[in-house]
């Protein structure tokens, strides 16, 4: 129980924060819209008596630039005042028309009155409250939008999947746009969609709340929040959202600052939609059902089809004529095999390995004979410019042995091999290269005759681009 205390505290704080931010937004919404309890209905221009009074109030209102509820209150109050004032003047013997002119004259020029009332309402204290409340509401809006975005993204994903399946059933096959098959890009698309929705809700919450609290028209404060939203969420989207990337996901992430600006302006005068209790319950249930459904589908798919782990890929060495070298990996595309006469007895290597992570794909080849490791310096004393070359490879999931994609005539990345005892190593940052996957890495060197030869048939693998949208845009091909 004590161990769960931090979790309970964090969850409780989160829920309290969301409830507080929603309450703040609702309070502000009441200020921005004239509800049934507001006095606005009693001050419709047609009900203020003479047309001069309506015209005066209209000119005064034009200068107010306040939320709707404030405008309605001011109009109602001044209409009441004029009614009393005119009645009093008429009691003193004024004719109605003269009484109206006199009453309006006592209030002064309408534009000046409107300006003074605006200044009175828009105090510095309220401005600070609006700024603070806007930030607070934006935080709550981001969390709520994130949760809603997950539901929307999942629904969208299921809808697209169903459409693709339907089209495939009738013989229409859509071209693949993701470039890989492991779902990483789909995940990044779903994530970007979620942030997109969260950004829209957060910006809208900020504008509406700060407008209500600072007593300013939403369109007036929208400029500030549009700039702030575009900068903050734009930075988040372009530089801080890291993960697998593709052109569709990068495109969505670049839309995030645009969405912040649009959410601050487009139909900002309209009230926020009321999210009822049942809508929340239905959303949560839908989310749980969706997650369980996707999980069930994944389990089903993984039990019926498998993919070969990278470590099982064949490591083929030049002079090795064993069965492991039988598949044609199109290695002749790289360079001729190194003549066995130029390599000492004890070659080939014991094996190779690769490992992948955010820090790059580490390629490690070990030289040896049987169980004994051989010194790289001793083996390659007649060879120069020993290097690992990364080539585009054939897709791993297609029939056939795979290997190098013969449409390419040169490697897309080269790293000098670093020797350490019996090992040659290099690190490739495939996660920062666009379209690098699948890849095939071979070991080559320049022989005694000055020509480059293939020393190791190498190994293949696939690794997703892993970085921000900025990393993607600035990545070398």
């Amino acid at each position, binding site marked *: 129980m004590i161990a769960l205390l931090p979790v309970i505290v964090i969850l409780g704080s989160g829920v309290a924060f969301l409830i507080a931010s929603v309450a703040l937004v609702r309070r502000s919404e009441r200020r921005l819209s004239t509800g049934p309890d507001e*006095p606005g209905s*009693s001050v419709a221009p047609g009900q203020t008596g003479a047309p001069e009074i309506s015209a005066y109030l209209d000119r005064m209102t034009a200068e107010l630039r306040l939320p709707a509820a404030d405008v309605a*209150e*001011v109009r*109602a*109050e*001044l209409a*009441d*005042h004029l*009614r*009393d*004032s005119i009645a009093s003047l008429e009691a003193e013997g004024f004719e109605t028309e003269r009484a109206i002119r006199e009453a309006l004259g*006592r*209030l*002064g*020029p309408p534009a*000046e*009155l409107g300006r*003074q*009332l605006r*200044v*009175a*309402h828009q*105090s510095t*204290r*309220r401005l600070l409250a609006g700024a603070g409340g806007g930030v607070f509401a934006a935080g709550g809006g981001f969390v709520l939008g994130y949760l809603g975005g997950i539901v929307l993204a999942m629904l969208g994903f299921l809808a697209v999947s169903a459409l693709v399946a339907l089209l495939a059933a009738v013989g229409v096959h859509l071209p693949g746009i993701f470039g890989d098959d492991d779902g990483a890009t789909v995940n990044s698309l779903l994530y970007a969609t979620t942030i997109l929705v969260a950004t829209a809700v957060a910006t809208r919450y900020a504008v509406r709340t700060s407008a209500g609290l600072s*007593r300013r028209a939403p369109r007036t404060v929208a400029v500030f929040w549009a700039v702030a939203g575009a900068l903050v969420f734009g930075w988040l989207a372009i530089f801080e959202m890291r993960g697998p990337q593709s052109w569709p996901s990068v495109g969505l992430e670049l839309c995030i600052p645009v969405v912040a600006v649009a959410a601050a302006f487009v139909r900002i005068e309209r009230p926020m939609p009321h999210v009822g209790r049942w809508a929340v319950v239905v959303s949560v249930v839908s989310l749980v059902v969706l997650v369980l459904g996707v999980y069930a589908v994944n389990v089903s798919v993984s039990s019926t089809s498998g993919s070969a782990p990278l470590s099982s890929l064949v490591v083929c060495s030049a002079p090795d004529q064993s069965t492991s070298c039988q598949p044609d990996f199109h290695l002749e595309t790289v360079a001729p095999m190194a003549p066995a006469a130029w390599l000492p007895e004890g070659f080939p290597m014991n094996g190779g390995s690769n490992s992948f992570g955010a820090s790059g794909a580490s390629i490690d080849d070990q030289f040896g004979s049987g169980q004994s490791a051989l010194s790289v310096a001793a083996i390659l004393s007649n060879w120069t410019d020993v290097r690992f070359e990364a080539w585009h490879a054939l897709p791993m999931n297609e029939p056939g042995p795979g290997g190098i994609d013969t449409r390419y005539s040169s490697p897309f990345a080269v790293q000098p091999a670093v020797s350490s005892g019996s090992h040659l190593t290099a690190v490739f940052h495939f996660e920062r290269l666009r379209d690098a996957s699948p890849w095939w890495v071979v070991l080559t060197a320049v022989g005694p005759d000055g020509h480059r030869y293939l020393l190791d048939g190498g190994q293949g693998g696939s690794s997703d681009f892993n970085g921000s949208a900025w990393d993607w845009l600035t990545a070398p091909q």
Partner: protein
Amino acid sequence: MGGRIRTQLLKGTTTLLVLTVLRDGELYGYEIAQRISERSSGAFAPSEGSLYPALHALEADGALQASWRESDRGPRRRYYKITKTGLGMLEEHANEWATFSRGMARAVGGTNQQ
């Protein structure tokens, strides 16, 4: 000429006058103007154009609380009630005014009382 001097004197005193009449109870805008005029026997009648900005500014500062209620005669009206903040502000303004008026009386009367 006398009216202009009175207008100048009234400038800056609207807040004090409003808070003073509201100390006795809730009133709406037109009543406030009337009550100020009555209490000063017609000597002070704040410009109606400056009364409402002053009322709304005091409300924004938390000195007044406004609420819409049915009135004895006619439609709903916006009533103002002085708050604790407003009472504190009234005391402060009243002290300032007392100091100012004593000094002004001494200066205009030509006496030099200690």
